[in-house]
């Protein structure tokens, strides 16, 4: 008797409004294996896994677990079928303890008292077996992300998961933490559990998976045995053509220091130090890249420079003039442009029409209307010019911004910030969720800015992006600058710094 595959998906289809997130997906995952799923942002990976976990309902298609067809109406059914999931965005109640989070939904009775003792014991056991140690009485929001992720894994195991789905578990981890996670995953596999691992990082795929499937634009385009494929092949499958991640650019011609950060410290609303005594300079005509794992203070640093967050101490100088504490409007006047890392929450007002977004932040500029009123004709004409120049599609300034695709939304932001001809540009995650074509376009514009002798500060969690664009690189870890490197520094060396290991 051949054992049934742990998971079989047949003809899964799912749309969100106009977005066809999953198109006729077929997938087979063998029991006791680690199966990787890769694909660009927005390829539909999370959607597919959420369907398997019962979080979303498929519009069409069939799911078989251990050969038995089942309808996963909700997460409860999934849990009962032995599926556990660690979501890309953690599903934890932040002001609850670890124990309460683990118990939630599996309390073992109407009253809590009974379940608590059992849960403690089980946690002890899991800790011993897999090396998943966390203090059961710690409050989630006080734990570092790596630990929070363990709680997620514990939640799944506590519910007796046989199939474990991990959605981009390493995005928030340092390489060392990631290695620890992989060791745990191997132990789990060796005990017969089936693991579905979603990631962008081909290195991880090669290191740990047995098989790998590739998604592109909602479709499942290929499945390979990991041993029989290469990084190059996977990358090509992912984007549908040969990838050229190197950006063509000449030598930098750095001039005088334009942006200078001195001993900057930033605390968040809870008083936790996010940026810790950071100093650096950015010269005109150069791109300074800030590398680091997400959540190590880069976002806060950018926001402080852009005037969105008040620094606790330290100095920010533009052209030698102290600007710390000035508001974003004032900083724009001083020639600082900012492409924010989150276009949906900051860079754009999604309910606005495109032309309205094309002046966001610059709406008080006399070009867009004198006195108290806006000159809508001028704004629309301006927007049309940008649309033409940046090939924003569809070329309609009266379209609601939400109805543009991610890449085009990003171009709206980039066009707005760059076309103002600023002296300095600070950029967060310029190509997050953007397709390859747009990536190349945006990268070229950034290099052009440098060549026009502007100062560019670039933050990205994509090491490749940092390395191919930057002229100099600094690395942040736990809010501190832990090192500086040149673009040709090895991935290994940068990775060590990003993990705070040097």
């Amino acid at each position, binding site marked *: 008797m051949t054992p049934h595959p742990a998971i079989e998906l047949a003809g899964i289809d799912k*749309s*969100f*409004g*106009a*977005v066809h997130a999953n198109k006729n997906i077929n997938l087979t995952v063998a029991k006791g294996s680690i199966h990787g799923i890769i694909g660009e942002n927005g390829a539909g990976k999370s959607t597919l896994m959420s369907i398997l976990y019962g979080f979303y309902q498929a*519009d069409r298609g069939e799911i078989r677990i251990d050969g038995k067809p089942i309808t996963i109406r909700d997460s409860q059914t999934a849990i009962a079928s032995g599926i556990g999931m660690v979501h890309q965005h953690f599903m934890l109640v932040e002001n609850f303890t670890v124990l309460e989070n683990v118990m939630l939904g599996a309390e073992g009775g109407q009253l809590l008292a009974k379940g608590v003792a059992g849960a403690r014991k089980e946690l002890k056991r899991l800790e011993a077996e897999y090396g998943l140690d966390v203090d059961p009485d710690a409050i989630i929001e006080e734990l570092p992300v790596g630990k929070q992720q363990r709680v997620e894994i514990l939640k799944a195991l506590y519910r007796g998961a046989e199939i474990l789905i991990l959605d981009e578990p390493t995005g928030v981890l340092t390489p060392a933490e990631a290695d620890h996670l992989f060791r745990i995953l191997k132990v789990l596999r060796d005990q017969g559990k089936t693991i579905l691992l979603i990631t962008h990082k081909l290195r991880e795929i090669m290191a740990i998976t047995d098989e790998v499937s590739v998604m592109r634009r909602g479709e499942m385009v290929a499945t390979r045995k990991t041993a029989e494929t290469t990084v190059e092949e996977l990358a090509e499958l992912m984007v549908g053509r040969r990838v050229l991640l190197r950006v063509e650019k000449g030598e930098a011609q750095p001039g005088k220091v334009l942006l200078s950060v001195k001993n900057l410290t930033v605390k968040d609303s809870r008083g936790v130090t996010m940026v810790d005594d950071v100093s650096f300079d950015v010269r005109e005509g150069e791109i300074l890249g800030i590398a680091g794992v997400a959540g190590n203070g880069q976002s806060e640093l950018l926001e402080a420079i*852009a*005037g*969105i967050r008040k620094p606790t101490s330290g100095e920010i100088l533009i052209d030698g003039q102290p600007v710390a504490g000035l*508001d*974003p*409007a*004032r*900083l*724009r006047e001083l020639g600082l442009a*900012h492409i*924010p890392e*989150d276009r949906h*929450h*900051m*860079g*754009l*007002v*999604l*309910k*606005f029409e495109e032309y*309205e977004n094309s002046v*966001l*932040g610059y*709406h*008080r500029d006399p070009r867009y*209307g004198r006195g*108290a*009123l*806006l000159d*809508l004709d001028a704004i629309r004409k301006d927007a049309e010019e940008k649309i033409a120049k940046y090939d924003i599609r569809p070329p309609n300034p009266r379209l*609601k911004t*939400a*109805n543009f695709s991610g890449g085009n939304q990003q171009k709206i932001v980039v066009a707005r910030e760059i076309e103002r001809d600023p002296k300095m540009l600070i950029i967060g995650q310029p190509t997050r969720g953007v397709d390859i074509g747009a990536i190349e376009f945006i990268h070229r514009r950034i290099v052009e800015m440098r060549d026009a002798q502007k100062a560019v500060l670039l933050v990205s969690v994509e090491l490749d992006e940092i390395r191919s664009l930057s002229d100099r690189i600094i690395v942040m870890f736990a809010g501190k600058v832990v090192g500086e490197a040149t673009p040709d520094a090895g991935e290994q060396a940068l990775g060590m710094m990003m993990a705070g290991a040097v």
Partner: protein
Amino acid sequence: MSTASVPLPNWISYGVLPVLNLLVAFFISGLVVWSIGENPFQALKLLIEGALGRGEAIGFTLFYTTSFIFTGLSVAVAFHAGLFNIGSEGQAYVGGLGAALVALALDHYVPWYVTMPFAVIGAALFGAAWAFIPAWLQAKRGSHVVITTIMFNFIAAALMVYLLVNVFIVPGKMAPETRTFLPGGQLPKLDWLMALFGMKLGPAPFNVSFIIALVMCYLVWLLIWRSKLGYEMRTLGISPSAAVYAGIPYSRTVIIAMLISGGLAGMMALNPVMGASARLQVEFVAGAGFVGIAVSLMGRSHPLGIVFAAFLFGILYQGGADLSFEMPNITREMIVVIQGLVILFAGALEYMFRPAVVRIYQTLSGK
């Protein structure tokens, strides 16, 4: 498949859907009428006749409409900035004080058209002042403007009663109210406007403040969709984080939006105080501030929609008074029920019919 992100043409979003919501609200109101043993169709007929049947009735309807335009605009302006101002009632009440002070000060000396601009300013200033503290608390201390404005409605009531009972009351008179304004402190009625349509206004207090209301509609439209400040308010209202990014000052914008909102509410007082009763009375606002919420929700916070919605509520108020007169079993609070139902269906259940409409639309348009 989810229908939430399927775009619909404007005439459906701003036409069909609100009308559908309204119809349900009226249908349920009809059920209430029926349940207390009256005939809803008969009631509807009486209501419409009572509101539009004669020149005088129309005059009353437009009188109420005027008040509701002001309060509707007031709620809408705050709404665009992401603030839910439930305090229009209190702001209008205090605005009445501003209007009355001007009228009392000037009516002996100058004709009404000289008094009027000052009264507009007085009413707006007082209304705005009453909105200031909730606005400040929201802007600087993060106290929810919904609750603070409700509290300020109560405080306004206490303040105004105190003033009317202890300061303004005419000695020897029973009712806590100011003396009657002379013609110099009254806004004249719009008999001529009604006459243009061949109707007689009679005693209905339809007055010049209607024109002020229409002017305000235009100014609010200009503010929201054509001005830099309006752009900032809308940005803040839709996406506070984008507003921060764009350097739009939160506190300042919140406070200005609330001041404008309060000012518009305050101007509502011109209509009853200087246009109708020619004196400041206790509780003269009589719920118009709250009607403004329904009007604004129904009019989708657009001045044009607000004019329509205000007129509809004007019909309800005037027709309802007549209805309750003809059918004593139906009291005027029936209007409050309808108002609640409109807020429920046009506001909270705004999208209840959207999925169904989307499906019908898709079928019909062959997608």
